[in-house]
């Protein structure tokens, strides 16, 4: 309590060059790191340590039983000749490319509906948020599998309208739409963030636009979109990263095999199978690191391109 005003006063003088001040800053830093210690220890022991060891293992033939042997870049070069690996990349990319924008569109649409002042808004917000709390769970994957199975509710419902697709679960052409629907349905988390962002947009802007005769479409593209762009950017980034890591639902719906005909062989599922079914932990580690690198590059590209469409308040432009 007594610390914070002192801190803010000192940081206000941060241009100063006096040695006495810098000694004080050193003491502050020590206190800061002391408070950070529990988190730092966990971060180093549970995240950084395993990551470094998996980086090392990715250059070995580690098989869980025997001491790892250094094989250089072999795992990485083998990856690109592995047809199943390439298949898993294809499956995952199509999931990210189609699933993420659809999910965000659904989240934004619902957030805008819920942003207006109406009775019972609290209830609707909770109701729409609920699927994202339970959506990633094992039980929902099982329910999903039953719903989209042969003679399941989806099959029967579509048959009622004369669309006879049969069960989706066993049809390699229909499994991807099924997974995309599952992720779109879990739009709750980005929706809540959108909702918070929408509330930050000053109402005067809309009022002024209305007076100038702007319609809802114009208002969306000229006010909502630019004002919300940092939030859209944040959601897009997080959901993209998240989508690359889909695992649990794919594991359950395909009985851990990535079938039918490899149509649900997501990247992490193949990684898991390589590591824990085939005991090729070195290979699996190489896959994990390749994913980290690719996701890192995508994040970088997002940040680079964001300058042209993301507007921060307080920016000079």
């Amino acid at each position, binding site marked *: 309590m007594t610390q914070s005003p002192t801190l803010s006063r000192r940081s206000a003088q941060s241009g100063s060059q006096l040695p006495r001040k810098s000694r004080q800053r050193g003491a502050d830093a020590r206190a800061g790191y002391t408070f950070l210690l529990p988190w730092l220890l966990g971060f180093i022991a549970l*995240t950084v*340590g*395993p990551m470094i*060891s*998996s980086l090392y*293992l990715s250059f070995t*033939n*580690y*098989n*869980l*039983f*025997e001491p*790892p042997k250094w094989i250089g870049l072999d795992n990485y070069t*083998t990856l690109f000749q592995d*047809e199943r690996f390439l298949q898993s990349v294809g499956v995952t990319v199509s999931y990210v490319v189609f699933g993420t924008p659809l999910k965000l569109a659904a989240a934004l649409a619902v957030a805008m509906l819920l942003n207006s002042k109406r009775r019972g808004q609290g209830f609707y917000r909770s109701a729409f948020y609920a699927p994202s709390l339970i959506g990633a769970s094992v039980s929902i994957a099982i329910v999903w599998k039953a719903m989209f*199975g*042969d003679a399941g509710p989806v099959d029967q419902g579509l048959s009622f309208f004369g669309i006879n697709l*049969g*069960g989706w679960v*066993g*049809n*390699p052409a229909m499994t991807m739409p099924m997974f995309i629907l599952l992720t779109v349905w879990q739009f709750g988390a980005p929706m809540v963030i959108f909702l918070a*962002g929408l509330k*930050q947009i000053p109402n005067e802007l809309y009022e002024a636009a209305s007076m100038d005769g702007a319609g809802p479409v114009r208002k969306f593209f000229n006010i909502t979109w630019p004002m919300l762009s*940092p*939030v859209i950017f*944040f959601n897009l*980034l*997080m959901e993209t*990263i*998240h989508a*690359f*890591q889909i695992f649990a639902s794919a594991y359950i719906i395909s*009985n*851990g*095999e990535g*079938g*039918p*005909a*490899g149509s649900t062989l997501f990247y*992490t599922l193949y*990684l898991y199978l390589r*590591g*824990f*079914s*085939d*005991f090729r*932990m070195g290979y*699996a*580690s190489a896959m*994990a*690191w390749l*994913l*980290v690198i690719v*996701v890192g590059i995508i*994040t970088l590209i997002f940040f680079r391109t964001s300058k042209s469409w993301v507007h*921060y*308040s*307080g*920016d000079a432009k």
Partner: protein
Amino acid sequence: MINRRHFLTTVAVGTASAAALAACGNGASTSAGETGSAENPVTINYTWWGNDDRAERTRKAIALFEGKNPDIKVNGNFTDFAGYWQKRATEAAGGGLPDVMQWDLSYLRDYGQRNQLLDLGTVDINTDAFDKSLLPSGQIKGKTYGIPTSTNAFAVYYDPAKLASLGIAEPDGTWTYKEFNEFLTEVGTKSNGEIFGSTDYTGVWWMFNIWLRQNNIEAFTEDGKLGFTKDDMKKWWNQTAALRGTPAIISEERVTQLAPKSPFGSNVTATEVTWDNFMAGYLADSGAKELKLAPVPSDDPDNLGLFLKPSMLMVASAKTKYKDAAARFIDFMVNDPEVGQIFKTSRGVPASKTQRDGTTFEGTDKLVVDYEKSIEQYLKDAPEPPIVGFGTLEASFKRVSSDLNYGKLTIDGAADAWFKEAEDLIKQNA
């Protein structure tokens, strides 16, 4: 409102890293086993795969064992088959395998050859009552890593009532592949596609193995290489080429929809080619009054390629602190007649003669025992423990066959894909 600096910090912290894997060191093992007493019993961990029925039977057997051995407590634990091996892999990496485990032939080399399993030749387990041709399947390079609990053999299951309702005669006990295929086609035709003949039997690894043996080929050579050629494999998958996509054989699409239940258990196919100890499970799933077993087809009536395989083995961890207790528990589970009475044929037909003779088989249990007796004259030696990584090869055989059935791969493409994986794996483990 949203400020850039604050925002970027949040994103930087939130940017998630992908899966990272940690390795653990191995603990040291002690040479002499610790023993307990009635007042101060030792506790050994035992784990197995199976359904609730097996869990119930196993608990009874454990209670019986603890009653007779007050100095040992057994802590039991079980999962399903697929999850079982992933769990063992992580435990082995951490050096914490349970003391005693139920085991499958497919994984014996993976763990045995890598010093994860106890050489049971160094402890006291009575194997006098075992058929001498069966024990080698639990041995690698002269060391005994597993003791078979029971045996199973391959067979064609069928439901006589279903065949009768379609006006099809029951199989007479011998058939060639051509006759078997005709039989499957007849089922599909006479039922108007309501009931399929069978699943695509060319997608079953062990059936392929049996067919190779019928042609006097061993699947794996002694030095851990493939004993068959790509052409053998293509010839095998060609057996049912004309049947795929017809009602003679169920499509993989339907099989996937029905999973985890089997097509035969769901009454969608009239026959199924698999191990004879699945009897109880199929009866429960299908609700059929009676199921019968016929031998597998063969083009050589004198060579059916059949063998008794240990349906499961008992193994101990190389790092167990309680070697003596583990050995006594294994001995009890494989030899005790009362254990036979508890399990009947649900683990397969008991391998130890003492246990087999002490068990009364009735109804379906008797069917399984009688089937194994009826094929006795055709039996060859049990296969040696398959090569390291066999579990992976078996799974990829199943997957490639499934892709073939889906029409995603041609027969040539399927053979190429499988051989590439197999050769890669053999090189990897060499």
